């Protein structure tokens, strides 16, 4: 048999998008994570976001570090190249890849151990450089793959499965990202697909460093009473500042646009983020105020989610480096090599 028929039509998720791809074209291998793991829901949200944006799967480069979370790029976008690097070093590998070809979409997936412990340095530097990427930290407060040790994002006072109480203060990747100059900063929850999918879509279309801290419960090691990263805890404490709707470029904005309660953010590529203000006083364009808001509300035990901050016209790494528009990996030998004559001139300068 040369052709394996796929069940076609009828099922709504198999509707083709603008490019003629169905949702299935954005899937990957079968996940090997624990049943119910939050990370699998994030993979599903990535599939949904890419499908809805009608992205060509092969124009995405999927990068990750090491951990359960970092395994997931194998489980979505099977037609995209993937790079499962070493522990904590995804940001540098992604940065290098982005330097070589500015035209692909770079999707970095990491865990809280990968990003906040061993890889905190690379996390920080990739953000402050404005690497044009979507950086998703699948945050479960533990090292899943090494069987449940606390990670650096575990809250002080959180209890491990065996009853141990965490004492060190937590690293808040979102506050750090704001300080470091990330230009698209969001937090969400793996269990809230409605919030997560448009946030990923907005991040993909954002030019510059986009970071999503997605609380993603580890059902095996950190989903018990006393954990602050369990499904129940997150549902109870989730306080969204806004609800985001992604409006692609060239699509007319009509319908339920109500100034005052809704805000429109125009992105670099002409797309819009339509924000329903759930907290009327919250302004995602004010970095300093966002930081203060986070500190204040997190101190009260709230888990602030939504689009925390966006600077839609931020400069990115290539602006900083001054690289030409043509991707470096497509330059030909003729464009790259100055040749024998030029070398003769150089020789003359060293005599």
């Amino acid at each position, binding site marked *: 048999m040369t052709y394996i028929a796929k069940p076609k039509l009828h099922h709504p998720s198999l509707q083709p998008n603008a490019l003629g791809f169905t949702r299935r074209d954005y899937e990957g291998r079968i996940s090997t994570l624990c049943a119910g793991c939050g990370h699998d829901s994030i993979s599903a949200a990535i599939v949904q976001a890419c499908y809805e944006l009608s992205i*060509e*799967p*092969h*124009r995405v*480069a999927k*990068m990750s570090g090491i951990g359960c979370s970092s395994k997931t*790029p*194998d489980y979505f976008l*099977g*037609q*995209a*190249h*993937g*790079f*499962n*690097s*070493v522990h904590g*070093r995804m*940001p*540098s*590998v*992604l*940065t*290098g*890849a*982005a*330097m*070589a*070809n500015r*035209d*692909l979409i770079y999707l970095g997936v990491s865990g809280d151990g990968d990003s906040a412990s061993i890889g905190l*340095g*690379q996390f*920080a*530097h990739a953000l402050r*450089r404005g690497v044009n990427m979507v950086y998703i930290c699948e945050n479960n407060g533990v090292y899943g793959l090494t069987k449940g040790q606390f990670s650096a994002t575990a809250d002080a006072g959180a209890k491990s499965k065996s009853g141990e109480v965490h004492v060190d203060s937590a690293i808040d990747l979102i506050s750090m990202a704001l300080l470091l100059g990330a230009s698209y900063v969001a937090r969400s929850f793996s269990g809230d697909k409605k919030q997560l999918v448009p946030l990923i879509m907005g991040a993909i279309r954002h030019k510059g460093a986009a970071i999503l801290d997605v609380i993603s419960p580890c059902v095996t090691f950190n989903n018990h009473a006393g954990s602050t990263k369990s499904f129940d805890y997150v549902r109870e404490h989730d306080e969204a500042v806004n609800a985001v709707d992604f409006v692609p470029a060239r699509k007319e904005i009509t319908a339920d646009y109500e100034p005052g309660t809704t805000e429109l953010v125009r992105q670099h590529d002409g797309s819009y983020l339509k924000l329903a203000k759930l907290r009327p006083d919250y302004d995602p364009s004010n970095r300093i105020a966002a930081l203060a808001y986070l500190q204040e509300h997190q101190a009260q035990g709230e888990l602030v989610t939504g689009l925390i901050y966006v600077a839609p016209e931020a400069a990115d790494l*290539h602006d900083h*480096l*001054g*690289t*030409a*528009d*043509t991707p*470096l*990996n497509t*330059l030909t*030998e003729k*464009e*790259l*090599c*100055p*040749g*024998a004559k*030029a*070398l*003769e001139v*150089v*020789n003359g300068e*060293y*005599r």
Partner: protein
Amino acid sequence: MRAITGPLAATNDFVVKFANINGSGSASANELFARSILRMGVPVASRNIFPSNIQGLPTWYEVRVSGEGWLGRRGGVDFMVALNPQTFDKDMASIEPGGYLLYDSTKPIPPEKFRPDITVLPIPLTEICNKAYADPRQRQLFKNIVYVGAMTSLLGMDLEAVKWLIAEQFESKPKLLAPNIQALGFGYEYARDRLKDRCKLKVKRQDKVGERIFIQGNNAAALGCVWAGATVCAWYPITPSTSLAENYNRHASRFRIDPVSKKKNFAFLQAEDEIAAIGMVVGASWNGARAFTATSGPGISLMSEIFGFAYYAEVPAVVFDVQRGGPSTGMPTRTQQSDLLLAAYASHGDTKHVLLFPEDPHECFDFAAAAFDLAERLQTPVFVMMDLDIGMNDWLVEPLSWDDTRRYDRGKVLSAEELEAGKTFGRYIDVDGDAVPYRTIPGTHPSQGAYFTRGSSHDAYARYSEEGATYVAGMQRLLRKFETAKSLVPKPAAREAKEKARFGVIYYGSTAVAMNEAVAVLEQKGLPLDLMRVRAFPFNDDVEAFIAAHEQVFVVEQNRDAQLMKLMVGECAIDPAKFLPILHFDGTPITARFIIKEIAARAGLAEAEAQEAAQ
């Protein structure tokens, strides 16, 4: 010992050493001195011996003048320009019997404080400058030009050649030209009038420099990267490699600007550390760009985890290791060849890497370009093993050359057309029997050629696998790939003695210049030696054959542990008892005298003869 017959007399064959204080602005004056001699057609070898410090500590600059064209360090000093009170006594003690000492006699030193067997050349540098200049900075800076002026007269150099060089140097700052020429004149006239005929070391115009250029290895390697089409450089500052990256940026900013947009056709990024630097290089190479990093030992240590990844996932990477004295921070501004074993097997698990050993800046250029071809052809990291001596000193070498008909070897990369034509793709399949698989670049084709790069065990299709047999097959293929590398890396350079030789000598890298001279002397003394300069790891079969063909083989290295010898013992089918290691590792470049003395002694040349040979 040579009999003391009064002041040393020599033409175009002596060593001058400048003892200065770091940060006093002496470097450019000393270089001016060396270049002036080159302009007279006389070969020089210069070496900067500097501290890990910005200001205040002692620094030396050694210039060997050699009409014969010997470019290694000879050892010993014939003419000391002693301008650093901190090191004055030691500097004086290091002068050869019959040698010369120039010092600032503004505060004269009583004659009994000097060695009786040397000629003292007092010049009141401070006094001359204080009289001529009001500004304290000028007083300090021009002192350096004044002593160059004095040397010009003492050594009978061509004053016009020095003036020409100064004029070239200040072409863009004409205001500084006249005062520099004036300071040169102060020194020249003082020595001419007051120290006439006191110095019997002379420079005489020759025609021995020819088309050669005077360039640092880091600079030449950087040029090699530009010519080889490297578009991504990620690095972290570390002596002695920093100027390699900085020179790349400088040359690329000149030769790699898009003619229309005026933007850069390269990316130059100072990373947060060496781990990030190599991560970026691997990411960029994976994505189809030619990428490199430049570092030194401590950086190689930090990068090790990712070297193993690149070896196992088969991603190209070019790494320049400009070696310095280790272990730990060691002697950061001194030279050594002590990272060989580290680099050859960098990372956990069974790993092996390709190493190249350039002998001078000229070969740094060639090997830089070769490294990118090899890395992409073999899909693996390639290390260019330089050292501080080559990297940071100006060497007189043949001009750099590029053949315009040469093509980059971008290795086995499948294009969209090839994928479209239905070429089956499995990332790690050995299609051609040379153990080198085909790769694809992200974004090439909508439905063909995607794969998942990972450092975990994988099958021929890059799928995760913990099957023992699959893992073993992959590891065995990597070993076969290393065999393929043998036939692609630069072959060793061999030279047979005119007479049949009992002994062979194996050496590599910056040792070559001193070795060439040592062998010439030893042969004159009746000790014929066959030579093999190893240029790469894995070792070509010629290396094994060379060792087999000799009763005993000297291995001359600049490290404590005979690292190349160990690598050969481990990787070649040979008898380790054949090796006689000759090791120099005090941080200064190895000298011809040292090699002569060691080999002569071990080869059983009579003691007296050995001593004499070493003089």
